[in-house]
Every structure is written in structure tokens, then in C-alpha cells.
């Protein structure tokens, strides 16, 4: 640790003082997001999460450059390659005669490393798309419920209660069963079951914000209801939703992998980690690498978003930090 022992409390006071000085020396005060960004960078968990997520986004964006092969290319005809070949890295003493596949080959003779790399694209899209969907619908419903109250509030929130009454994964399975298996329906189902979380938090924020003085001031100035809701209330209610959204990406990726594992999610030949793992689970004893690596990829991705979410929570709401 550092040479001068500093207690967490002193550290916090110091941070606060520094921010104050900063505000005094500069004309413009630090905005919420800029301040949050600085606090995020000061926390180890937040930084680790940020780095993991950043690397994953780069991997997803440049997958064709990083992956040595096409994820669907069949190597069974290649000399020296057999089905479910274990990892072979020449630098680590693998026979130079054998073709190099750093994570080995899968049951169809495809390069596992390339598939895992391309899987990043699938999983990140699943995370972002489902959360965007749930975020937009959920927070719109929550904002309407909180702002208008009365009948819209009651009818929306009772529906949310019904959704929350079922175990999330099982309800999502029921939705996919009704719509048919596949990646798109999986994303839809996961989005639907996560809507209530956003609706509830948005509603609670809106309820407390709409009573604040600046909203009253806006109303006194003659702003319309929609304008007040859209430009005065909603922007200030977004903070907790950003945290839930980040953690929600982690949950969505994990759930989508579970769907892939159960055979309801992504279908062949899509390189999705959960279904890759499920296809080879019966070969666990003879080819453990085919189960191990996709699982590690899921874990690192989920961990990254979880850490980032935790970091953001601490950064956006210092009162919650422990």
C-alpha cells in the first residue's frame, strides 16, 4: 500500500476538498457525469470493470482481425487435425508438425479460439440490445406511472407486479416456448422479464423529483406537462437506471448463455458461448477444453459488467458506498 497511511474517511474528505477547490478555481462547477467519471476512475473495481468491458468491446469490434480463422470454417480436412483436438500452441511445446489452434478444435473441427472471439460479438449485442429494449420500455412505463399517477400508475404497476411474481428465468423460458427458440426471441424474453426493474426505479425517482422546487418553478413558468416530464424530470431520474442497466447487461448475458445451454437460445452455427458449451458437454471427460473456455469467456464478460456497475453505483451515489 502507499507510504502514508490514510484512512478511508480521510481519503473521502480529501477527495471532497479537492473537488471543492476545483470548483472554486474553475468557473464552471463539475457536472454530475464528469464528477462521477472521476470518482469511477478512483475506484479499483470500477477501473477493472472498465478495462474488461473496454477490451471486450475492442475484441468484438475487431473480431475478424483478432480471430485467426472464420468461426464456421471446418478444419477436419487439414493435415494433422482431428475432431476435438486439444489446444496446440507451438511456443508452449506443441509439436510444430501439428497445425496451431490455440484453444483447440470443436466437435465440428472449427477453431475454438475464433469461435470464442466471435462469441464476444454475440454476447455483447445480446447484452446491449436487451438492456436498451428493457430500459426504454421500462423507464417510459415507470415515468408515465410516476408522473400521472392514478389509473395509469395502478394498471402499469400491477402488470409489473405480476411479471415480478414469477421466477424470472422460468417466465422467460415460458415466453421463448410460446414464441419458439432462437436468439431473437431469447433477447425479447429476457427484455420483457427485466422491464419491471426499470419501471419501478424510474417511477420511484419520478415520484420524488416531481415534487422538487425546480419542477414547480418550471410549471410556474408555464412549461407543459410533457416538457416538464421530458426535460426536467427524466434527465434527473436517469442516474440509478444507468447503474441498473449496467448490471442488467451482466444478467442478460448470463441468462442468454443459460438459454443457449438449454437449447432455447442461439442456434447452430452461431458462435454463442452458452450453446457452444452445451453442444460439447457430453464430451466433458474427453475434451474438457470445449466446455472450459466458453465458460471462462462468459464469466469474464459478466464479471466486467458487474464490476463496472458496482463502480458506477459508488461513483454516482457516494452515499451508497461502503
Amino acid at each position, binding site marked *: 500500500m502507499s507510504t502514508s497511511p490514510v484512512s478511508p474517511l480521510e481519503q473521502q474528505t480529501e477527495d471532497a476538498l479537492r473537488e471543492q477547490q476545483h470548483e472554486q478555481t474553475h468557473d464552471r462547477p463539475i457536472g454530475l457525469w464528469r464528477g462521477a467519471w472521476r470518482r469511477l476512475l478512483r475506484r479499483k473495481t470500477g477501473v477493472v470493470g472498465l478495462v474488461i468491458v473496454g477490451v471486450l468491446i475492442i475484441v468484438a469490434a475487431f473480431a475478424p482481425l483478432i480471430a485467426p480463422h472464420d468461426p464456421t470454417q471446418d478444419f477436419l480436412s487439414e493435415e494433422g487435425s482431428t475432431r476435438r483436438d486439444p489446444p496446440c500452441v507451438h511456443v508452449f511445446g506443441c509439436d510444430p508438425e501439428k497445425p496451431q489452434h490455440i484453444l483447440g478444435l470443436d466437435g465440428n473441427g472449427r477453431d475454438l479460439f475464433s469461435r470464442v472471439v466471435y462469441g464476444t460479438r454475440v454476447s455483447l449485442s445480446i447484452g446491449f440490445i436487451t438492456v436498451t429494449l428493457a430500459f426504454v420500455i421500462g423507464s417510459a412505463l415507470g415515468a408515465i406511472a410516476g408522473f400521472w399517477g392514478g389509473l395509469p400508475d395502478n394498471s402499469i404497476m400491477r402488470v409489473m407486479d405480476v411479471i415480478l411474481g414469477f421466477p424470472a428465468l422460468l417466465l422467460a423460458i415460458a415466453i421463448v416456448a410460446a414464441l419458439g427458440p432462437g436468439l431473437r426471441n431469447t433477447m425479447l424474453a429476457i427484455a420483457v422479464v427485466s422491464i419491471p426493474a426499470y419501471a419501478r426505479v424510474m417511477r420511484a425517482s419520478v415520484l420524488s423529483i416531481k415534487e422538487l422546487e425546480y419542477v414547480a418553478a418550471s410549471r410556474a413558468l408555464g412549461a407543459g406537462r410533457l416538457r416538464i416530464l421530458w426535460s426536467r424530470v427524466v434527465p434527473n431520474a436517469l442516474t440509478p437506471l444507468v447503474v441498473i442497466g449496467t448490471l442488467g447487461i451482466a444478467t442478460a448475458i*448470463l441468462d442468454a448463455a443459460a438459454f443457449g445451454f438449454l437449447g432455447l437460445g442461439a442456434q447452430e452455427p452461431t458462435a454463442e458461448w452458452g450453446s457452444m458449451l452445451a453442444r460439447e458437454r457430453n464430451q466433458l471427460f474427453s475434451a474438457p477444453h470445449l*466446455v472450459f473456455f466458453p*465458460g471462462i469467456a462468459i464469466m469474464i464478460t459478466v464479471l466486467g459488467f458487474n464490476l463496472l456497475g458496482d463502480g458506477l453505483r459508488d461513483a454516482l451515489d457516494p452515499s451508497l458506498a*461502503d
Partner: protein
Amino acid sequence: MPQYIARRLLFAIPVLFGILVVTFMLARLIPGDPCKSILGEKATAAACEAFAENKGLNDPIPVQLGIYIRDVAGGDFGDSIRFSRPVSQILVERIPLTIELSLTALVLALLIGVPLGIISAMRHNSAADVGTMMFANIGVSMPVFWLGLMLIYVFAAQLGWLPPSGRLTAGVVSIPFYEAWGWTVQPDTFQFRVVEFISNHYLLNSVITGEWEVFRDGVKHLILPAVALSTIPMAIIARMTRSSLLDVLGRDYVRTARAKGARERRVVAKHALRNALLPVVTIVGLQMGALLSGAVLTETVFGLAGMGTMLFEAITARDFPIIQGFTVIVAAAYVVINLIVDVSYAYLDPRIRLE
């Protein structure tokens, strides 16, 4: 207290009724013709008509609902469409395994998660604290099915310490306690279902009958799935215990206790812990849904014929009676668990009065 519990259970009846109606409606909303799914795609119109008449599907929906509720009130959940067997019999066969599995997982999660949280809070920012929090972060990020497969690979395939799947080794048979005691129970009666339900908890049954061989075998088979299922709740419980205890340790009454000269152990055990455990109890109650979802995956990985796999199969095969039966049972379990959570609040914090 008994009065309170009785009233809560009474209030649960309308809730369960509502859930019954909602599941009934939802099951009818799922697209697909039950006739085609049972008699096959080539069923003639006449055969389908007879089938619908026979199963009461031609009655108006409210009448069907009324009949269904009457039957459920009498303990009859109808017959499974796929297996043509009473749903209540299937419930009795499948639920005990899941109860044993999730209870073991929950106990493991509490026995390890709570002490880990306490140690982290007491030694805030120490290596133990950082290690525990790292474990907790990784724990909530791990796919249950992957962890299960890795446990099988290490402890069953490589080390050979534990069996990779199943509930009992082939050849080991759990003799129901009522048979061991020479009771004669009429099959397909309510009594039969009750004794079957009890004896299908293999661990419990083997303790009753004293078959320690079966007990040991059952425990061996239960360890890996229970560990896999317990990881996420364990991580969540450890985090919750830690942050809640950290919060309580900063309170005035804890400072007072320290100022009196009480030892740190005593301060934590007597003054802080009880208050810190309240949010943990809430979390444990909320984990039940997650445990059931996790059971679907864990049972699939370990080849266990429990409620999770049954429900998954029933949903994908559109076996309405089974889905409805399970949903009602799960909802009833929620009611009971919430009641237990509320009662334990009152036990942990005497300021909370149940009325």
C-alpha cells in the same frame, strides 16, 4: 404469534386464487392446440371434437376455470397431457429432490456466506476482506451450468471422489419408510400422496428407516449439485452481510458498547450482528426464486429428475396441467417463505411487532 400466522395464511388464499386464475389464463394464451399436441398432427376433426368434449375444452372458459378451481381445492391438479398421469403424483415424485437440493444449497450458502461477510466487515480492507469480495464478485458472475460441469470434471472425472450425476448409485434403493414399517397404503389416495411425498426425500427417508448406506450415497450425490447451486446465493449473502455489518458497526450503540470496554468479539456477536442480519434475511427470502431458476440448470447438468427439469420440459412441451400445478405449488411456497421471513424479523428485532 399463532394468531398472526393464521391470519397471514388466511390472507394468502385470495392471492393464491389470483395466481390460479392468472396461470389458467396464461396457459390458454400460449399458442398451440392441445388436441394436436396429444393426438398428433394428423388427428381428424371428429377425433379432436371428441377429445375436446371429453376434456371439457368445449365449455366456456369461465366454466372451465370454475371446474379447475373446484378440482384444485380438492387436491386434484388434473392429468398431465404428456404422461396421462395425475399431476399431483408427478409433483409428489419430483418436488422432494428439488427441496433437498435447494435446502442444502441454501444452508451451505448461509453457513459459509454469513461468516465470510462477518470476517470481511471486522477486518475491513484486509487481505481477507479483499479476497472475500473478489470471491463474491466472481461467484455472482459464474454461469451455474458451467460451474457444475467444472465440478464434475475435477471431483468426479479427475479425482474420482464424488459421483458425476444421478441421485443414488445404481443398485442402491431407497425403501420408503411406510413399506419398511409394513404399512399398507391404498395407492392414488391423499394419504398415499402424503407418505410418498415424505419418503421421496431420500435423505429424510433413510434417516427415518436407518438405512445409513442409502443416506451416505444420497449425500455423496448431493454435494456437487448443492455446491454449484449455492455459489450465487453464497456470494450475495456474503456481500450483504458485509455491507450491513459495516453499516451497523458505525452506529452509536456500537461505539457505546466499545466504550464500555466490551471485547470486539462480544460487540459484534451481541450488539451488531443481530441488527446486521435483518437485510440478510430479506435477501435469503428473495433468493428462493433464483434458487428455483438455478435448479433448472443444476438438475439438467447433474441429470437429476427434479422439479426444475420437469417444469422446463413441461413448458417446452406445453403440458398445461403440469405448468399450472407447479405454479400453484411455487406460489404457495412463496407465501410460506415470506411468512417465515417476516416471523424471523420479529425474532431478530423485538421492536418489530407482528399484528
